[in-house]
């Protein structure tokens, strides 16, 4: 059975801190891994990682994938209160039928205190 574990499940830090969110996965026919930020309702896309060891960066956010050890991390530097959200990771698998459904972890609930 496919498994996605995110840690920590919740995290409270102060503005300006750096945080590292973890996602480990055990899935068949791995294709890529996606990170999303969910503030109220719609998860918004952050990164898609396909290759091991290549860091993707967007402003203060960065992410990297390790396909050998089956995990990914999401880093946020100089955190701001607007970074408060649930961060979801979702491996995507190859499917014989062509289905592209995402398997999500439970998410990390990040709270940034002023």
């Amino acid at each position, binding site marked *: 059975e496919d498994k996605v574990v995110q840690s920590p499940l919740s995290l409270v830090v102060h503005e300006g801190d750096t945080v590292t969110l973890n996602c480990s996965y055990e899935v068949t026919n791995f294709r890529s891994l996606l990170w999303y930020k969910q503030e109220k309702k*719609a*998860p918004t896309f952050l990164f898609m990682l396909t290759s091991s060891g290549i860091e993707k960066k967007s402003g203060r956010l960065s992410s990297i994938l390790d396909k050998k050890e089956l995990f990914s991390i999401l880093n946020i530097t100089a955190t701001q209160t607007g970074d408060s959200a649930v961060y979801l990771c979702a491996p995507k698998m190859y*499917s014989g039928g*062509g289905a*592209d*459904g*995402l398997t*999500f972890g*439970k998410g990390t609930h990040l709270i940034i205190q002023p």
Partner: protein
Amino acid sequence: DAGVTQSPTHLIKTRGQHVTLRCSPISGHKSVSWYQQVLGQGPQFIFQYYEKEERGRGNFPDRFSARQFPNYSSELNVNALLLGDSALYLCASSWGGLGETQYFGPGTRLLVL
């Protein structure tokens, strides 16, 4: 360009009733996926449609069904509602090629009493 839109935003139903949720994908996107998100959990995959054909189905009972229309909009139907069906129902669209990023709509929050 408009993002993914969903209607209604909120819905209250009673056990045993039927519900229809609607989704319009981003213009040009041909694939729509549906997810159920229960409080405190990540979204769970229900269905994926591409070019009006079902491409994939998650581990949900037959009470859940969906379809996609020629304009690529989609409906999710749930029959014989149970209390446990209370959740946020998210729709995501993508261009349709395998490996494409999925973009989510704001969701429909369903409460079953």
